[in-house]
Each structure stands twice: as structure tokens, then as C-alpha cells.
């Protein structure tokens, strides 16, 4: 069988043996000892037909990471999932996958998963059998529901998180059969948006946004590309909306209003730093300025109370800024307003969402860029219902509490009293597949399958249905069982007859019942859904909905915040952990936060002006106190936050979730009140003021932000003004000499009239010093910085594809992070005091594969060299670790393996490793290889099919595949028709530092395009 199934059977490893010898110095003991690793070759007993050893098998499925339900391709090798990718044929996500989506693989192979059903015995868990566990649950349910039982009887409470529609139906049936109550809880919830849609239009579904169709995009603090309802889809939409369209010469404008720049905010063209909680006033102020007579329907009188002046007053910004934005709504064509999102769930959040809907309505966006699907789903009041459930538990009314897909012991404010109430429940059950704060309190744990091991479905939007199919059999060391199967078994045990014995049958029959015979054979539809990943049903076109009068009183004012602190606290979902469920993934812990570039620990964002006024510096440990709690956290000075606001991300500070989550950071919910927004019932995140006091202690931030957001006048991430596109660029006089030098190299293709390969390279093309060596492909990459949003999906994709290890918080502090690709983030213009142009530049930095590479001549052992195909290769087995190459690399993209980081990776996390990529040992330099294994795979395939060279687009590096913004293009630049060649022909193309040091990189960047004038020196 293949390498990865070969196992080491010998007990003694060579180096362990040598250590022993080294200590004793007794060479004579050598005789007779085996110094070999004996590897076993374990064949299949019966070979599965669809698996060829050494060849990847791909499956489509649905990402279970969040409610966005993106389409996924999963690459499996010898029956193990090794990589997830975006499914380009999925109608919602359309290819691309976020970094959290990648991290779901680490949940599958989470070493802290339960090894079987766990039954509490006193203070500890005992591992039981499934039969035993199911009988226990069935018996306890009968006992709880027995009317004679006055000791520990009571209702059944089911607390659930996000599930697919069919599983959700089964949960409802389960509760109905038992006579109980179900609460859907998630700290990161769109309940105010849903409630506002119900009030305004009588629909209970989240509006669908066509961001790409907008020419003016306005976000009221909504972080839609990172932590919103559908990050991949919306990230793609933003890239399509705001990237310059070279053919049409157009570019959409993005204005961000909010107290803090989230990752989404950093991508805006303009920032209006409004006061926290003033979104409704601003939206209504703009609406009042642009609304024609009758446009606002029943809200006309409401709008009369607002004006740009009142909006400016509430928001603390100038009236001109509001007027200018209102003018853009009139003049810039299709517009779209979004928001405010979870980070701004204050006590009037439903009203704020409604205000944004009114703005969209009067701007004529409904049916154009905003669509309301007239479907009904149950209205969720997560926090309000949870409060009811907590009260019932505290009162002793609940006999059995069951938790599925949620972690309320962590994701509720401490003040909500969940822990004490949950403790009172006589029998507590968790379906968590790994330990978390709630499972730690349970009496019975029934570990659920990971979504990559289980059947399920999804309906990311009405009319789109996708099946979640298992891509591998369950990880054998974890004796898990799909929750749906358990529920069906328990129902059967308790005498409720079930038509389906397994959840798979239940799922199939549910879809059979939904199947419209007019669409053809069910089996054919099912197979097609599994093959392509989704089925789209034609939906009747929804009529433009009528704006309805509110059925309840709503306050649109800025709400009062708790306490008398001088700083308002913004608590927002984390880029990496969302609400906290991704915290036990070391990939997520070590992924630099897209905004702060900090890893592993929490940080409090504060404006540098505010910090300076208090004598606080970066890394100072401060105690943050609200009326509801206090935490100690290091400071991070961030220019993208208002001076009267501080911000803290959710998701960290776990206590019993696993080895990678526990003890890292603080739980931001500790500072929040246990109140629900009215009328949506969502948890409030923007509700309190805090005081920030120095503790006198400090720490070095674990950050990868080398130059703290400053380019220091180096031509790293230049930009070009939109109005100047198409004009002759100014002559770069100072570098003329270098330009001459470059006559022998570089990658500036000339337009090809005769496109035949024989006539390539064309006269005048510059292909670098190795050009004559080879006739084959010449690999190159283009990255459009006008599309890149800095989301960091590529970083995790690269880590997953190339077996890049994580190193830990202390190692990162020492600069020993191992990422092969990182996202540089430079602040060019950020002003938190007034409305102004915003200019923040993101630049994915990976090995530039220089044709004139500084690393190559300094390697004493020829471990790094240039391949004839234009790749700067690193041959690990040649490398002796002098690190000269890293010292000589101007881009800091070479990373050194200081310790055996990969050895520390526990089973079965290492099952994720890509068997096509060498797992590097310590003492070896490594870096981006342009996904050499994918190039080889494509070449092998092409050779077997007797067609050379490989087709354009056949080699897709992991970063390009994942990029939701479609910013990265890779290919053979020698081919005049290749996508990369055509992209690089843009006038915006440049190569980082090339004009200064003549490295002639193979990675070409396309300048970001700004609306404002770009300062000299940064062009």
C-alpha cells in the first residue's frame, strides 16, 4: 500500500537508539540491536473499486463549519480526507472556501475527540458502548416524563445549534414525541436582521444580497466578508463589485460606516467613523435626504424626524459627509446598504436593521441588489428563548437537557446564569464530538460524527439544495455515531415507531417526499446532487414586496450603554474562531488575525491617541472592567478604531475545549450583560462601557506584523488612482539604470498577434537569465491586489496542502512562524476622527520565485536553485540549514524549521498530511514551491493522456483554489493565451521591489486602484 498506510512496527527509533548509545557510551551494546525501522505494507482485504492507491478520490459535500453552507470538494487519499476545497459549481459559494472551512478538517482529526460514548460516574467519565448509552438515554427520558416522578422528573429541553433542514426536522419530531421544548441558540445570530425582515416585509428569511451588481456599497459596520452570514459568497461579491473592471473601465465604491474597521471595513474606499449605535439614525438620515414622495410608504412620517443634520449629530461626524454619501446614493447607480451585523447588536439592533432596509427601499434597491425570498422559517429568538430555558432549568422544571451543535456553557455571558441552572438539571446530555465547556458538565456524551463522516443536507437559500455526503468512513479511533441515528434509535426504544432505521434512510425519504416528479427520476436527481454538489430548483419569481407598517413600537435612537466607563466596548465575532467553535484548531490559533496579525492570544483594540493619552503602549496588560465582569488582556494599538471605543473579539478563552483552545486568550462575553435585544431576542454585543486600567505588567504580542503596517517608503504595495488608469505612467527616472539591467530578465510579455507556440517567446519578451535553458512551461503567478481582501483563506489552504506545521505562541514571538504565505497589511491612510478616504493595502506575500534570486547564489550546497520551469526550488534533502538564503531573501518568505514541529503533532491530526508533499524535518529551510506536487500531478496526468503541455488552468495552486475573491491566477506565462499571461499584460502590473533590487520575480502583482489621489512615492 502507499507510504501513508505503511506503519512503523519497530519499537525503537534510530535516533532514540543513538541517544541511548550517546549517553552510555557503550558501543559494545550495538551488536544484535536492530537499527531498522521495519515498515509494514498493509493491503486491503478487499480493495474498494473507487480507490486507486496514490491517486486522489474527490467527493462533493457541504461545509458544516457555519450556516453559510458553502459547497465543498474534498480530496481523499486511500480513504482519508486530506484537503477541502471550494466547489465552483455550487450556486452560492461558487468556488473558494474560507480559512475556517479548511480548519473543519482539524475538527475531523481533532485529537481531543471522544473515543466513544461517555457516561458520567461521579466526577469522571467512563467510556461505554453505544447500546448502553442509547438505553440509558431512553430510560432517563421515560423516567423524566413519568408523571409520578417528582424527584427528577420534568420536561425535556433540547438546545441546538446550526443543523441542516432535515436534521432540524428530526430534532423537532424528537421533541414533539417527548413533549419538550427546543431552543436554537447561537451567540453569532442574525436574529435582528430576520426580525426586521419580518416587520418590514412579512418574510422570515435573511435577505439575499447581490453585492456584485452594486456600484455603491455601504456597510453599516457589517463584517460580511469575514464573519457574516455567507462570507465566501459575499467576499466574492465584494471583489467583483469593487475591483476595477479593466474592460468597462468601471469600479464600484465601498463606504464603511462604523466605530471600528473590521476586515470588511479595511477594504472600504471611504470610512465614516460613526458613533457606536448610531447606525439607524444615519441610515434614516440618508434615507430622508434621498426619499422621493411616497417612497418610504408607512415610514414616511418616521423619515421626517430625520435629516442629514440629525444623522451627523447622532454619529459624531460632519453633516457634509452624510450629505456627500446621500448624494452618491442618487448618482452612482445601483446601490446596496448592509448591516449592522453581529458586532453591532445593541439594544436597538432590530430597529437599526430595519432602518437599513428602509434605506435600501427608498434607494430602489429591492429587487435589484436586495432580494427577499418569500419563504417562512421559524423566527428565532435565540437569547430570549435561552433565557426562558435557563429560567426553566433553574426552577427545576427540566428533567433532561440535551445539547446538540451548541456550547451554551461557553457562548453565553457569564451573567446569564447558565452554569448554575444547567447544574440543576438531573440528567444532561451532550452530542458534542469533542470535549467542550458544556460537554464537561454533561452526564452522558453521545459523540456525533463530523460532517465529513456523516449524511446530511443543506438549504443555503430557497431553491438551492445540497447533500452533505460522507467523504470517508468515520475515523476509526473515535467510536462516534451520527446524532440522527441516535435520536431514531432512542425514539424506537421508547416505543415511537420509526419509518426509518437510520438517518440516511430518513434523509432519503425526506428528499423523496419533496421531489417533484416533473423534475425526472429521483435516483437520477440524487446522483446528480452528489456528483455536482447541489440541485437548484426553479423558484417562482418573488414579487417586489410591499413595505409594511411596523407592528410594534421600535426605538431608532442610539441606545444607552451600561456603566459609566469612558470607552464603549465592541464585541465582535472572531475572524478565526467565529463564536468560539474553531478555537481548538491549531491552524486557526496560528493563523494571523486578518486585522491585527496577532496569533494565539486575545488583544484589546484601542486607538493610539487614546492609548497615548493614558500612557499605554502596545502589549501593556490592562484590566478591562464593565459592570458585568472584568478581563485582563494585552493592548493592541489600532488606528482603525474610534478614540472612544475599544474592541475585543469573541471565541477565545476556553477552559475545557481541548489542548489548543484552553488557556489562550479571554472570553469577551464575560464583559457583556445577559440581556436580549428586543424584539428579536438576540444576544447584545454592543451594550456596555468599560474602563481600561493599566496593570503595570506587559507582554510581547505574538504577532507577525513585521513593520507595523508601514511600508517605510518601499515600493511593496503601490496603488494607482482610478482616474489615472489608461494614462501613460510617469517615467521612473531614478531607476533607469535598473530598468536597463532588466533587459535580460523579467516577465513583461509583449502582445501576441501570432499566437502559435513556435513563435514564442516573441521578440522583445523578457524571460530572465534562465530563459534559454528549457522549452517547457514557465510558471508564473499574478495577484490582483484590487481584488484581494486580505481574508487569509489562502494562508490556511497553503498550510493544509503543504504540511506546514504550526509552532506555538512563544515560537511566533521569536519570529519562527512557518507560514509559506502571509498577508501583509499596510495602512496608507486611516483616520478615525472624521469621514475620509480610507487606504489600507493587503498583499499576499509568498516566495516570489525570482529569476534573479538572491537566495540561490548564497546556498553553499545547491539546495536552492532555479528549475528550468522558472520555479525557485528548495531541495530539502540537500539543505544543511545554514540559513544564508533566508538572510539574503528580501521578501522574508523563507522559513526555517527550528524544531521537529511536525513530530509534536498528535494522532490523528497528522492523518491530514498531504502524502504528496514531503514532511520536513528540523534544520531545513522551506518555502512556497508553487505547489510543485500539483504541477507534477498535472504533468503526470497529461503525460498519461498523451497530451503535452498541460492545459491552462490545469495546475491550480492551493492558494488560488481557495481564494474567494479570485485574485490569484497561476499558469504558464510562456503561453500567450494563458490566463496569467493575459492578466499580467495589465498596465497595473508590477513586481515587488523589482525596480530597486532587480530580482525579477515570477509573481506579478496588479496595483490596487483607489479613488483618491495616491501620495507620491507610493505609486
Amino acid at each position, binding site marked *: 500500500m502507499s507510504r501513508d498506510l505503511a506503519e512503523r512496527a519497530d519499537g525503537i527509533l534510530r535516533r532514540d537508539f543513538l541517544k541511548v548509545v550517546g549517553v552510555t557510551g557503550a558501543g*559494545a551494546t*550495538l551488536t544484535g540491536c536492530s537499527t531498522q525501522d521495519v515498515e509494514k505494507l*498493509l493491503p486491503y482485504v478487499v480493495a474498494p473499486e473507487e480507490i486507486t492507491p496514490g*491517486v486522489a478520490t474527490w467527493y462533493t459535500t457541504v461545509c458544516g463549519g457555519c450556516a453559510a453552507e458553502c459547497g465543498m470538494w474534498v480530496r481523499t487519499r486511500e480513504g482519508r480526507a486530506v484537503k477541502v476545497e471550494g466547489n465552483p459549481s455550487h450556486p452560492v459559494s461558487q468556488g473558494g472556501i474560507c480559512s475556517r472551512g479548511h480548519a473543519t478538517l482539524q475538527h475531523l482529526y481533532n485529537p481531543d475527540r471522544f473515543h466513544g460514548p461517555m457516561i458520567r460516574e461521579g466526577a469522571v467519565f467512563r467510556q461505554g458502548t453505544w447500546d448502553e448509552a442509547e438505553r440509558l438515554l431512553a430510560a432517563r427520558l421515560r423516567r423524566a416524563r413519568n408523571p409520578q416522578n417528582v424527584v427528577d422528573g420534568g420536561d425535556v429541553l433540547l438546545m441546538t445549534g446550526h443543523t441542516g433542514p432535515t436534521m432540524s426536522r428530526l430534532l423537532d419530531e424528537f421533541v414533539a414525541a417527548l413533549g419538550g421544548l427546543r431552543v436554537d441558540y447561537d451567540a453569532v445570530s442574525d436574529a435582528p436582521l430576520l426580525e426586521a425582515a419580518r416587520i418590514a416585509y412579512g418574510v422570515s428569511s435573511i435577505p439575499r444580497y447581490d453585492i456584485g451588481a452594486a456600484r455603491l456599497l455601504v456597510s453599516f459596520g457589517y463584517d460580511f466578508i469575514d464573519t457574516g452570514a455567507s462570507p465566501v459568497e459575499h467576499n466574492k461579491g465584494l471583489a467583483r463589485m469593487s475591483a476595477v473592471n479593466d474592460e468597462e473601465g468601471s469600479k464600484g465604491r465601498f463606504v464603511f460606516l462604523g466605530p471600528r474597521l473590521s476586515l470588511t471595513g479595511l477594504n472600504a474606499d471611504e470610512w465614516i467613523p460613526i458613533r457606536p449605535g448610531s447606525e439607524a439614525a444615519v441610515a434614516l438620515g440618508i434615507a430622508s435626504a434621498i426619499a422621493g414622495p411616497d417612497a418610504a410608504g408607512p415610514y414616511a412620517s418616521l423619515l421626517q424626524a430625520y435629516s442629514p443634520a440629525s444623522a451627523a449629530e447622532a454619529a459624531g461626524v460632519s453633516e457634509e459627509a452624510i450629505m456627500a454619501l446621500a448624494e452618491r446614493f442618487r448618482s452612482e447607480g445601483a446601490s446596496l446598504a448592509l448591516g449592522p451585523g453581529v458586532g453591532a447588536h445593541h439594544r436597538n439592533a432590530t430597529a437599526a436593521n430595519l432602518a437599513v432596509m428602509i434605506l435600501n427601499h427608498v434607494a430602489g434597491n429591492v429587487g435589484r441588489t436586495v432580494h427577499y425570498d418569500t419563504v417562512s422559517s421559524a423566527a428565532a429568538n435565540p437569547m430570549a428563548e435561552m433565557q426562558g430555558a435557563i429560567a426553566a432549568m433553574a426552577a427545576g422544571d427540566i428533567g433532561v437537557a440535551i445539547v446538540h451543535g451548541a456550547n451554551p456553557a461557553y457562548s453565553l455571558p457569564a451573567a446569564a446564569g447558565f452554569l448554575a441552572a444547567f447544574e440543576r438539571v438531573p440528567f444532561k446530555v451532550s452530542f458534542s464530538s469533542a470535549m467542550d465547556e458544556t460537554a464537561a458538565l454533561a452526564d452522558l456524551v453521545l459523540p456525533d460524527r463530523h460532517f465529513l463522516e456523516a449524511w446530511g443536507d443543506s438549504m443555503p437559500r430557497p431553491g438551492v439544495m445540497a447533500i452533505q455526503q460522507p467523504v470517508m468512513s468515520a475515523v476509526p479511533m473515535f467510536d462516534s455515531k451520527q446524532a440522527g441515528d441516535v435520536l431514531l434509535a432512542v425514539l424506537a426504544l421508547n416505543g415511537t415507531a420509526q419509518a426509518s432505521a437510520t438517518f440516511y434512510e430518513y434523509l432519503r425519504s425526506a428528499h423523496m417526499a419533496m421531489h417533484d416528479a416533473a423534475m425526472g427520476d429521483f435516483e437520477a436527481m440524487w446522483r446528480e446532487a452528489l456528483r455536482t454538489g447541489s440541485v437548484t430548483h426553479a423558484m417562482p419569481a418573488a414579487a417586489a414586496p410591499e413595505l409594511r407598517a411596523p407592528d410594534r413600537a421600535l426605538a431608532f435612537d442610539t441606545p444607552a450603554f451600561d456603566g459609566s466607563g469612558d470607552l464603549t466596548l465592541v464585541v465582535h465575532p472572531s475572524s478565526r474562531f467565529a463564536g468560539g467553535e474553531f478555537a481548538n484548531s491549531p491552524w486557526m490559533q496560528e493563523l494571523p488575525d486578518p486585522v491585527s496579525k496577532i496569533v494565539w492570544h486575545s488583544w484589546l483594540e484601542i486607538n493610539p491617541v487614546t492609548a497615548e493619552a493614558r500612557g499605554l503602549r502596545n502589549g501593556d496588560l490592562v484590566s478591562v472592567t464593565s459592570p458585568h465582569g472584568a478581563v485582563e488582556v494585552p493592548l493592541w494599538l489600532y488606528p482603525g478604531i474610534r478614540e472612544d471605543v475599544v474592541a475585543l473579539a469573541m471565541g477565545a478563552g476556553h477552559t475545557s475545549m481541548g489542548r489548543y483552545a484552553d488557556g489562550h486568550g479571554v472570553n469577551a462575553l464575560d464583559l457583556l450583560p445577559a440581556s436580549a435585544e428586543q424584539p428579536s431576542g438576540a444576544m447584545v454585543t454592543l451594550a456596555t462601557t468599560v474602563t481600561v486600567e493599566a496593570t503595570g505588567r506587559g507582554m510581547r504580542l505574538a504577532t507577525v506584523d513585521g513593520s507595523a503596517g508601514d511600508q517605510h517608503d518601499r515600493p511593496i504595495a503601490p496603488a494607482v488612482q482610478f482616474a489615472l488608469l489608461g494614462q501613460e505612467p510617469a517615467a521612473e527616472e531614478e531607476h533607469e539604470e535598473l530598468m536597463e539591467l532588466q533587459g535580460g530578465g523579467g516577465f513583461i510579455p509583449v502582445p501576441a498577434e501570432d499566437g502559435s507556440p513556435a513563435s514564442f517567446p516573441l521578440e522583445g519578451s523578457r524571460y530572465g537569465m534562465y530563459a534559454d535553458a528549457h522549452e517547457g512551461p514557465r510558471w508564473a503567478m499574478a495577484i490582483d491586489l484590487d481584488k484581494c481582501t486580505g481574508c487569509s483563506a489562502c494562508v490556511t489552504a497553503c498550510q493544509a496542502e503543504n504540511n506546514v506545521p504550526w509552532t506555538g505562541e512563544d515560537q511566533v514571538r521569536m519570529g519562527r512562524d512557518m507560514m509559506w504565505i502571509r498577508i501583509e497589511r499596510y495602512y496608507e491612510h486611516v483616520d478615525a476622527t472624521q469621514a475620509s478616504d480610507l487606504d489600507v493595502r493587503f498583499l499576499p506575500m509568498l516566495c516570489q520565485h525570482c529569476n534573479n534570486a538572491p537566495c540561490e547564489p548564497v546556498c553553499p550546497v545547491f539546495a536552492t536553485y532555479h528549475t528550468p520551469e522558472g*520555479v525557485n526550488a528548495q531541495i530539502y534533502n540537500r539543505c544543511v540549514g545554514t540559513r544564508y538564503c533566508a538572510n539574503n531573501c528580501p521578501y522574508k518568505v523563507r522559513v526555517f524549521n527550528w524544531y521537529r514541529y511536525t513530530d509534536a503533532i498528535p494522532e490523528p491530526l497528522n492523518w491530514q498530511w498531504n502524502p504528496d508533499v514531503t514532511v520536513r*524535518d528540523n534544520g531545513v529551510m522551506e518555502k512556497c514551491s508553487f505547489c510543485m506536487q500539483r504541477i507534477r500531478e498535472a504533468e503526470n496526468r497529461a503525460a498519461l493522456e498523451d497530451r503535452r503541455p498541460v492545459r491552462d488552468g490545469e495546475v491550480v495552486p492551493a492558494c488560488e483554489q481557495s481564494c474567494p475573491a479570485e485574485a490569484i491566477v497561476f499558469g504558464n506565462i510562456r503561453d500567450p493565451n494563458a490566463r496569467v499571461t493575459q492578466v499580467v499584460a495589465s498596465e497595473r502590473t508590477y513586481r515587488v521591489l523589482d525596480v530597486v533590487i532587480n530580482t525579477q520575480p515570477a509573481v506579478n502583482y496588479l496595483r490596487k486602484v483607489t479613488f483618491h489621489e495616491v501620495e507620491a512615492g507610493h505609486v
Partner: protein
Amino acid sequence: MRKNWLIGGLAGVLIALAGVAFVQGGGGEAEAEGASIQPIAFPHNLHAGSEEGQANMDCQFCHFSAERSVDAGIPSVATCWGCHQVIPGRTNPQEVAKIEEYVESGEPIPWVRLYKISDHAHFPHMRHIAAGLACQQCHGEIQQVGAEGIQTRTGIGRALFGVDPGVNDNGPVWGGGNMGWCIDCHRQPNEQGVQQASTDCAVCHY
């Protein structure tokens, strides 16, 4: 990948100091004469040999994925059993009978790996087969090797190539046992006098 040369250098010093018959020990006690390390004494010659009484089977009948995959493939127990449930075996029926035990227990046969290329080198079988190479070019006249040949690495090294793989832990037993042997072949000119295969490092090492 293991950087064994560093450790190997240290080992060399230790061996010199000790001055014991380390080399005589071969790879260790597992390779003592006559001792069997394979779970079944499998004779390649009876299966793939073309002499009288030998089955003359194609290598890829069992090593089924060699022409379409990086990996040549080890036959599943079901493949063995497909023939051997009707062919009890003339020479060593007791060895053939072991297959049935594996079939019944549903356990894979734990073959001990003898051919191994280091983890930092990639050898795509299908490309070499597509280039028209015979299996024997790298693996030697394996179809002439009996059960004793694959019992030990020393045995197979001597039987096929007349070389002793010696004490190199995990040292490859194919060909001459080092990269030069690969390169020699890659460098050979084809009929047009052009080098026939790439000798770029990154073709195999990535």
C-alpha cells in the same frame, strides 16, 4: 524526511570507537540466515516466472495500479484468494493455506516492506511504465526470485543486483541503491541523441 546523514556521521564515530562487528550483524537479528520476516513465504518466481511450472503472470495483475498511479499497489487479500481458493498450491500448500486465515479473519497480510524510496523522493510508477520501462529495469529479475529472496533485504539485494544493502537503515535495495543510479538512466540519450528524462532536482524532490 529524516536527515540521517548527520546522525549517520555520529553513528560512524561510535562504530569506530566500539570496533565491534556491527556490519556483520547486517540489519539486525531479523535478518539472520533462515529467519523469516514475511508473514507468508511468497515466491515471485512461481507466479511471474516463465519457466516450466511457473505461471508467467503479468506483474500488473497483482501490482494493479502501477500504470495509472504513483504507487504500484499491493494486491488485496481478495486478489490472492481469487485464484488460491481453487489453486491450493503445489510447492508450499501450508503457505497458501495462510491466505484463507487472512480472508476469514478479515485482516490484511502484514507484508514487511523491502523496497523503499526515501520520503523526500517521489517515484511515479506510471510515468516510468508509460516511458516503456520494464519493471525489471529497477526491480531486477524479480520474476526469478523465490520465497527466500524476499525474506530479507540482504537476500533480495544479493539475489537481484549482487549488491549487499548493508547497514543502511531503510537503504533502498533497488538498483545500485542511490540517486546516481536513477540519474544514470535519466541522462541516457534517446534515439535522437537527446537526454531522455529530466535531471532537474525538483522533478523528484518536492
